[in-house]
């Protein structure tokens, strides 16, 4: 039960003084993080020939800096790609303490060794001064001067950064210790973000996507609850379902995706954006949508990116168990209702009067996925990566609220004019349904409709007791639902996305030139009973 042992004994003091007498020029002040001499030196029973010799330094360091060690900073030795040049810990570090460099400063992280001035004995360039006074800030760019690979930023004719000091061979493409080769490779980034210390300093985060792309990786988990890999945890293999990297095209400045059907590389410029204020649909956006998104979101999924390692299938290519929604079929222009992605819509009531510009038909009769969804394949805080948030998960589980109805109305009126369709809209009367806008009589979210627009249109919620009203998830893209013959709608094909969560049927009232609905749970006078088809409520 020796919790705390005897303070520094006299014997230790004698040994310490003895060492100082023998090695006065070393002048080592022991780095406090490394404890005492006995932290590393085993006086009488070291595995090596002397205290700790070169053959055991690697293991000695890794007892703490290895995966299971107690040090916060994890590390491993340096290897080049084919393992022909290996540098051990002591080739770059002096474990005893930081020492001064040739510019008069003091290196950090105990970089450099030799007495007096910080040097590194390089594989091919002899002993060279090494300067490492700053490691910068990982995410905000770094003050690159005197850090990992600053080229000759201080103009003293020396390439002396801790990474570049050894690199001289032409097989090293970037940041050599002379002016040849490239010195613009990720300038301003911290080298060890991608060439990690635990991954032998090899590129690409030790060979993993998440090693470098941790910010994107985080988009696949909370609080980003809208992302592509749903129902599971994203894996490294999942990245390869969509991306063609890594390969020779990695880090070439382009976004390289994989054709879901053929496996061919699809190259796009980085930073594609959709300008939802513009009449013009961007060519890159359409290319991405039609040749990438829609080729996966179709009936056969992604046969060319079959994720066998992660356990995926053609229609469930990620490691999660969710199936790819076939939106391509839903958008088919032959469907009785569809949003206008593959071609112009058939709803003549969506016109310059009822739609917000630029979706006011005449100029903009076709839309893209990214008019409703964010242009991000990774994820966002909004469920289903919608442009504005709707808590569709709560809706689907039957947890309804005024706020939910409001959020639906906010989303839909991005394109559909609020003045025509919103709760307090004043125009109205220009749509098929006379109770849009003015005189809504509880059809808007502000009037008690907790599903908002989705009480009647599309939706993911089926009010209990209304069987088969077609309000399955994704039907807001488009569909061909027909009401059953026993319903009040009597087998008629639904139009205008009239498959909402509250209704049990809908049909055109041709005599009035307007429409009527089966009412569902909306049992107000003039509507048709869901329980007794053909009978109208009278009160």
């Amino acid at each position: 039960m020796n919790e705390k042992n005897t303070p520094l004994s006299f014997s230790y003091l004698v040994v310490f003084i003895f060492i100082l007498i023998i090695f006065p020029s070393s002048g080592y002040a022991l780095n406090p993080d490394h404890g005492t001499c006995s932290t590393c030196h085993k006086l009488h029973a070291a595995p090596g020939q002397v205290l700790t010799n070169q053959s055991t330094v690697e293991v000695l360091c890794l007892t703490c800096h290895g995966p299971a060690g107690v040090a916060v900073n994890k590390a491993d030795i340096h290897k080049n790609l084919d393992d022909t040049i290996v540098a051990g810990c002591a080739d770059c570090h002096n474990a005893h303490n930081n020492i001064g460099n040739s510019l008069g400063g003091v290196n950090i992280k105990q970089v450099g060794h030799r007495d007096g001035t910080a040097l590194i004995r390089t594989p091919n360039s002899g002993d060279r001064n090494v300067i490492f006074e700053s490691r910068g800030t990982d995410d905000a760019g770094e003050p690159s001067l005197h850090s990992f690979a600053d080229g000759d930023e201080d103009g003293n004719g020396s390439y002396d950064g801790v990474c570049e000091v050894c690199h001289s061979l032409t097989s090293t493409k970037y940041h050599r210790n002379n002016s040849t080769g490239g010195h613009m490779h990720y300038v301003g980034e911290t080298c060890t973000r991608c060439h990690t210390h635990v991954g032998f300093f090899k590129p690409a985060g030790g060979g993993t996507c998440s090693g470098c792309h941790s910010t994107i990786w985080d988009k696949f988990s909370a609080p980003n609850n809208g992302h592509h890999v749903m129902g599971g945890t994203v894996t490294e293999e999942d990245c390869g379902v969509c991306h063609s990297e890594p390969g020779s095209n990695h880090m070439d400045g382009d976004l390289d995706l994989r054709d879901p059907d053929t496996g061919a590389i699809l190259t796009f410029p980085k930073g594609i954006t959709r300008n939802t204020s513009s009449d013009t649909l961007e060519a890159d956006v359409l290319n991405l949508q039609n040749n990438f998104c829609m080729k996966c979101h179709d009936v056969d999924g992604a046969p060319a990116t079959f994720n066998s390692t992660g356990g995926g299938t053609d229609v469930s290519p990620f490691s999660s168990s969710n199936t790819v929604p076939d939106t391509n079929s839903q958008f088919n222009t032959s469907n009785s209702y569809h949003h206008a992605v593959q071609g112009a819509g058939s709803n003549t009531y969506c016109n310059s009067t009822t739609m917000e510009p630029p979706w006011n038909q005449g100029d903009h009769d076709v839309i893209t996925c990214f008019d409703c969804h964010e242009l991000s394949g990774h994820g966002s805080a909004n469920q289903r990566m919608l442009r504005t948030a709707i808590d569709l998960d709560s809706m689907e589980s039957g947890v309804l609220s005024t706020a939910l109805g409001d959020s639906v109305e906010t989303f839909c009126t991005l394109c559909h004019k609020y003045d025509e369709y919103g709760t307090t809209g004043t125009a109205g009367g220009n749509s098929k349904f006379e109770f849009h806008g003015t005189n809504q009589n509880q059809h808007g979210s502000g009037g008690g409709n907790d599903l908002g627009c989705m009480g009647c249109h599309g939706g993911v919620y089926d009010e209990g007791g209304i069987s088969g009203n077609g309000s399955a998830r994704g039907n807001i893209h488009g569909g061909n639902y027909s009401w059953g013959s026993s319903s009040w709608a009597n087998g008629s094909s639904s139009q205008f996305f009239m498959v909402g969560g509250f209704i049990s049927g809908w049909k055109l009232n041709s005599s009035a030139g307007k429409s009527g609905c089966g009412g569902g749970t909306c049992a107000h006078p003039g509507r048709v009973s869901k329980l007794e088809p053909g009978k109208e409520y009278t009160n």
Partner: protein
Amino acid sequence: MGEKRASEKSLLSLFIVTGILFLIFAGDKITAASKITEKIYSPIRLTFGPANNLLVSDYLAKSIVTVDRKRNKILKRFKIDGMPLGIAYHKGKIFVGNATRRSVEVYLESGRMKYSFDTRVRQPNDIVIDESGGRVYVVDTFDKNVKVFSIEGNFLFRFPNSSTVHPLVNPTAVAFDKKNNFIYVSDYGDSARWIYPSVRIFDMDGNIVGEISGKLGMFGNRFSRPQGLVVDENGYVFLVDCFSGEILVFTGLTGMLVKTISGYGTEDGKMRLPLDLVIDPKSKDIFVTNNRGAKIEIFRAGGEL
């Protein structure tokens, strides 16, 4: 005549010395009869899994490897999203400490993740399960404590708590003593504060009941970097020292060193940075993750005392 007598004396002396040396070191002469090297890049912890095969956490490969013990070959592996450290197995479920995600995750044998624990574990270095008590003990090296969960992953408590007079300093690994219902925790100590490495012994509620000190005499250490450990059915503690490459065997609470196996080196039977071990209760074979050797060392009947 005199020369002959001198020669006989020399032979006798040599015989006696050899005999003494044999008696001293006979118990330690255990060499690794075989090893498992196939595609294990950075073995950290290991445990017995389905069909009594070995489950090994492979840190750099970000995967869990199943080793077929009959053929000493890799049976399969599955990737996890992060770098695995601690590993334990219980009724078809594989409990993995994910160092990247700082969590304990539970996988089915197929590799599908079932659920993760409800409380963050920043460096889940080692995991042991008290099957009868339904508790999961996880060493969090970063937080310098042991976190205790239910099998379902609900946090129960941690030890030592802030009021204990015997805190853990730099804990690395954990073992369960079925015989005495004790929890053993390896601890590097802190030489800067003159706290020696040790194995701390706790009861099931986290109260300290004993210690095996790494200190030996005025200067020496019996061990300096204690890592994985196992307590056998007789209460003997098998501990790996990842610096010396040794497996040390102690009597439990009394802390007497009774045996040393292996040591530092690259030759057969020697190890560089061994991190964990398990002992087959029937054959007494010891299996050790030899990290820098990138292999599993097997010491046939090494657990026999």
